[in-house]
C-alpha cells in the first residue's frame, strides 16, 4: 500500500476573501465612545460553503486515530467510540447551563456522581472530583491539596520538596513548581526508581513523591510497596500520575499500591477524544487524609436527590469554571458502562499483550533498554542508527510516509535517541503486524531516504528551527513580514 496524504494548496482563511476593515460596527446606545471599536474586526467574510470546504480540506491534511494507528507512547491513543460522540451531543447534555438550578439537572448530577463512584473503585481511593481540566491541571490541584494538608499540620514550613524520578513526565516538575514546591530528581536504576536513592533522598523536607506506575519506560515499578513505605515513613505523601493507568485496570490500583492521591486522564484510559491537543478531562482521587481538601463543589446524594455541596471548609476552593468537562465525563461514563468489570480488566490485558507483542517484534530492529517484560508501552533506542548518520527523528518522519503515526521520540531522556511506543487494546493483530512491517521498512531504508522523509504528506520536512528563530505567530506577523518585503532566505537542512 502506498500512502499519500491530501496535499491541498489551500490558502489561509484570510486569503480566501477580503476583510471589510474600513467599516464601523453598528452603534450600541450607551457605549462610551472611548470603548467603541472604530472598525470591524479584521477577518474575511465568506460563504458558508467556502468555510466548510476550507476546514474540510485542512482536516484532510491531518492524521487522526480514525485514519491511522497512532503509536505515541504515554498518550494511549485508543479508539474513541462513536456512541459517546452521539450521546454527548444530546440536548439533555449539550444544552445544560452549569448555573441552572440543581433540580433541573438531576440526571447530569447523577451521572457525575456515578462516574465518581466508578472511578473511586478503579483507583481504590474513596473520594473523587472531576473538576480538573486535564492531567497537568489535576497534578497542580493535588499538590495544592498536599500543601493545604501540611499547612494544617504546621509542617509546610519544612515540607517544601517534591521528589520525582528522572523518568517523570515534564508536567510533574512544572506542576510542583506552580504549586510552590522545589523539585528533586531521583535517579533510576534499570529503568525503575532506585530504592536506595529514594531512601537517601526522603527526609522531613519531603512533601510528596510523584510517580507514574507503570512508568514512562513502560515498566511496572515492582518495588511500589517499599516505595510507599519509604515515602510514608518520612511523613510524605505519595502521588499517582495516572497517565499510564490503562495497563493496570482491574489488576491493581493506586489505593492498593499505597498512593494517597491520584490524577487520571479520561482522554487516555477512558477513550475521550484528544481533539488535536485537547480538551482533556482530569480526575482527582484522594484517600482519607487528603479528601477534605478536594475542590468544591462536590457532588453528593441526599436521599434520592443529587446536589452540589459547597460546605467543605478545608477545600482548596475552585480550580476551574463550573465542575469540569462534563461533555467528556459523559463519554467516559459510557465507556465505563460498556466495559464493566470484565471489559475494563480486559482493556489492561489486551493493551499489555499488544505492547509485549510489538516489543518482541520491533526489538529485532533496534535495541530495547531494560528488562523485556513491559506494560502498555515500551522503549527502543535509535542510537545504533547514528553510525549511518540517521537519527530517531529521521526514523519518525520516515514512519509517517508509511501512513502510520510515529512514536513519542526523545522521551524519556534516560535512553539515548529514545522511541516510546504504545498501541493500545483497540488495535487488532493485523494492525500491529502492519505497523511492525512499516517499522521494518523504515528502519532498514537508506540513510538518504530517511533524511528525505516525509515525502508523502501535505508538506515535506519542516524547518522548526526557523519557526523559533524568526517567530511568525499570527496573520498580523505575516502582514508585517509581507509589508517589510523580507526576502525569504533559502531553506536550510532538515530540522534537528
Amino acid at each position, binding site marked *: 500500500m502506498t500512502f499519500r496524504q491530501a496535499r491541498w494548496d489551500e490558502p489561509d482563511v484570510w486569503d480566501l476573501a477580503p476583510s471589510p476593515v474600513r467599516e464601523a460596527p453598528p452603534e450600541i446606545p450607551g457605549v462610551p465612545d472611548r470603548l467603541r471599536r472604530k472598525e470591524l474586526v479584521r477577518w474575511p467574510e465568506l460563504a458558508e460553503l467556502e468555510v*466548510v470546504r476550507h476546514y474540510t480540506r485542512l*482536516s484532510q491534511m491531518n492524521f487522526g486515530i480514525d485514519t491511522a494507528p497512532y503509536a505515541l507512547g504515554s498518550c494511549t491513543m485508543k479508539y474513541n467510540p462513536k456512541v459517546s460522540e452521539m450521546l454527548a451531543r444530546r440536548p439533555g447534555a449539550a444544552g445544560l447551563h452549569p448555573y441552572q438550578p440543581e433540580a433541573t439537572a438531576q440526571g447530569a448530577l447523577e451521572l457525575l456522581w456515578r462516574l465518581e463512584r466508578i472511578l473511586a473503585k478503579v483507583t481504590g481511593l474513596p473520594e473523587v472530583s472531576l473538576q480538573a*481540566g486535564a492531567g497537568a491541571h489535576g497534578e497542580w490541584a493535588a499538590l495544592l491539596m498536599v500543601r493545604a494538608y501540611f499547612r494544617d499540620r504546621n509542617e509546610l514550613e519544612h515540607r517544601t520538596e517534591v521528589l520525582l524520578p528522572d523518568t517523570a513526565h515534564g508536567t510533574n516538575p512544572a506542576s510542583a513548581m506552580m504549586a510552590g514546591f522545589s523539585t528533586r530528581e531521583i535517579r533510576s536504576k534499570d529503568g525503575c526508581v532506585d530504592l536506595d536513592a529514594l531512601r537517601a533522598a526522603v527526609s522531613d523536607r519531603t512533601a510528596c513523591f510523584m510517580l507514574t506506575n507503570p512508568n514512562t519506560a513502560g515498566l511496572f515499578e515492582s518495588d511500589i510497596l517499599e516505595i510507599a513505605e519509604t515515602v510514608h515513613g518520612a511523613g510524605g505523601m505519595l502521588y499517582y500520575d495516572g497517565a499510564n493507568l490503562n495497563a493496570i485496570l482491574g489488576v491493581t490500583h493506586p489505593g492498593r499500591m499505597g498512593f494517597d492521591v491520584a490524577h487520571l486522564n479520561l482522554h487516555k484510559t477512558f477513550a475521550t477524544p484528544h481533539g488535536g491537543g485537547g480538551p482533556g478531562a482530569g480526575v482527582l482521587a484522594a484517600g482519607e487524609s487528603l479528601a477534605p481538601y478536594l475542590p468544591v463543589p462536590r457532588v453528593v446524594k441526599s436521599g434520592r436527590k443529587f446536589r452540589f455541596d459547597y460546605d467543605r471548609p478545608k477545600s482548596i476552593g475552585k480550580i476551574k469554571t463550573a465542575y469540569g468537562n462534563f461533555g467528556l465525563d459523559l463519554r467516559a461514563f459510557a465507556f465505563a458502562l460498556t466495559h464493566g468489570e470484565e471489559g475494563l480488566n480486559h482493556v489492561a490485558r489486551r493493551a499489555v499483550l499488544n505492547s509485549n507483542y510489538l516489543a518482541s517484534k520491533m526489538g529485532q530492529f533496534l535495541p530495547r533498554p531494560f528488562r523485556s517484560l513491559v506494560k502498555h508501552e515500551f522503549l527502543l533506542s535509535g542510537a545504533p542508527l547514528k553510525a549511518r548518520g540517521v537519527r530517531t527523528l529521521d526514523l519518525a518522519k520516515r514512519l509517517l510516509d508509511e501512513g502510520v503515526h*510515529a512514536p513519542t521520540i526523545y522521551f524519556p531522556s534516560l535512553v539515548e535517541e529514545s522511541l516510546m511506543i504504545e498501541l493500545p487494546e483497540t488495535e487488532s493483530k493485523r494492525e500491529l503486524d502492519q505497523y511492525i512491517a512499516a517499522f521494518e521498512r523504515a528502519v532498514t531504508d537508506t540513510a538518504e531516504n530517511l533524511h528525505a522523509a516525509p515525502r508523502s504528506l501535505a508538506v515535506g520536512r519542516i524547518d522548526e528551527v526557523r*519557526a*523559533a528563530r524568526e517567530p511568525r*505567530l499570527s496573520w498580523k506577523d505575516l502582514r508585517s513580514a509581507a509589508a517589510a518585503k523580507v526576502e525569504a532566505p533559502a531553506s536550510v537542512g532538515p530540522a534537528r
Partner: protein
Amino acid sequence: MRHEKPPPSGDGTLEYVCCALGPTTEPINPLLRSVALRGAVVPRWIPNEPGEEEALLEALQISSVEQLFRDVPKKARIGRLGVGPGREEPDVVCEVDRLLDRNKPLAKFASFLGGRISNRYSPAAVDAMVSRSEFYTSYTPFQPEASQGMLRVLFEFQSLWVELTGLDVANASLYDGATAAGEALLFCRRLHEGHRFLVPASLPWEEKSVLENYASGPGLRLEEVPFDERTGRLDLDFVRRALSAGDVFGLLADIPNGFGHLDEGVADLKGILGDVPLVVAADPLSLSVLEPPGRYGADVVVGEGQGFGIAPSFGGPLLGLFACRAEHVRSAPGRIVGATQDVEGRPAFALTLQTREQHIRRSRATSNICTNQSLMALAFTVYATVVGPRGLATLQASIAEKARTLASALGGIEGLKAPRFDAPYLGEFTVEVGRGTGEEFLDRLRRKKILGGIPLGDPRSRATRGAERILVAATDATTDREIQKYARAARAAIAAVGRSE
C-alpha cells in the same frame, strides 16, 4: 455464552437495568460484543477474532496473559473492582438517555442565564467541522508534517484572537477563561516584581477562587479593588493608593465586568499602572464592537471563548483565550503555533518556542499545561468565520438591544432594581431584588419555566449565599414574548415574597 447475573455493586453505580435490553440474561449480541479468552465478555471495540489472542500469546511463547503481569507483586493485586458487568451498546444509550431525560435543558425554559457561559445558537456547520474525526481523534501536533490541518487551524485561531484583542501574540488555548486569568496572573509575576495582584471586588466568586489558587503556590496575594456602589466602576483612587504602597505586580479588570456592565475606567488603567502589567478579561463577542484592549494599554487579554460555537454542556469543555505583547512571548504559557516552511520552501506550520514548555523546561517552564483545548479553538474559529466580522458585530448589537428591552421591562417593577448599576451594558446586567433573596425570586420564576438569572453570591458562605443580586442575560434566542413573560412573572414573584414576609 450467557452473561452471569452480576453481584449487586451495593451503591448503585452500575446496577440499574433499563429498557427491554436488560443485560443480565440475554445472549450476547455478536454485533456488539464478543467473548475473549477466559470467557470475558468484551465490547467489539477491542478486536477479538477467534484465535487472535492465542496467536499473540504464541508469538510471545507464553500460555496466558496473566504471565505478563508477574511483575505486579501479589500484595499489590486487587480482586474485583466491583463496578458491575459490561453492557450492550443500545443498553448504554438507553441508560445515558434515561439520565439525560431527567435534565431539563435550557430549551425547555425561557432562559436568561449567562455569566461567562452562553447558550447562543451555533450554526450546524461548526459542529460538522468539529466532528471531522481527522481533527477530533488527533493528538497534539508533535509531528507537524502529519498534522498541518490542525496546526493551520490553531494558527488561524491565534490570529483571530490577536485581531480581536489588538495584541500581538496569542497562544493555542488554555482550559477556560478562569484558568487563563490564573495563567495571566503568573505571567504578570514573570514580567514584574511584587506580591500583590489587584482584582475587581465584583469579579465572580468562582474566578476569584481560581485566581487565589494560582496565586497561592508562589506565595502571591489577591487584593480586591472596591467598586462604586452606583455605577459598579472600579475605584481608581484605590488603585493609585495600592500602587504607591508598592509590591503590586499586576491588575486584572474585566469587560464586561462581573455585573455585566462596561466600566469606562478600564481605558484609564494603564495610565495609572505605568509599567505594572494590565490584564483585561474580555468577552470575545463584545470585542466585535468594543475597542481592542491592546489599544488602551492591556498587556494581556484573556477570555472565555465558549460562546463561539461551543455548547454550554453543563460547563465544559470550555475555551481559555490568552494574548500578550510580542516582547513578552517567551514568558507566555501554553502551546504556540508558528509559521515556517518545509525543505522545499512551501509554507508550513509547527509548534514553536517550545523551550518555554514543561516537556522541555520541566520545573522552569512557564506553565505546566500540556493538554489544552484545541478542538474548542477549532469551533471558535469556524464559528467566527461562518458568522463573519459583520455578523459578529450585528449579533452583539441585536443582543444588546434585547437586553435593553428586558431592562426596561423589568425596570418598572416595584421591588426590583433593574439594572442595579447606572452603567452601560451589552447583553447582561445586574438586577437587585428588593424583597427576599435572589434565590427565592429565581425559584418562583422557575415554577413559571423561566430561568431568570444567576445569583451573584458565593455559595460557600452563608452570608452571601442569599445575596439579592442576580445577573440577567439576554441571548440571541430571547424573544419579546419571553421578555414580557419574565416581567409578568417577576412582578408576581416580588409581590408574593412581599406577602410571605
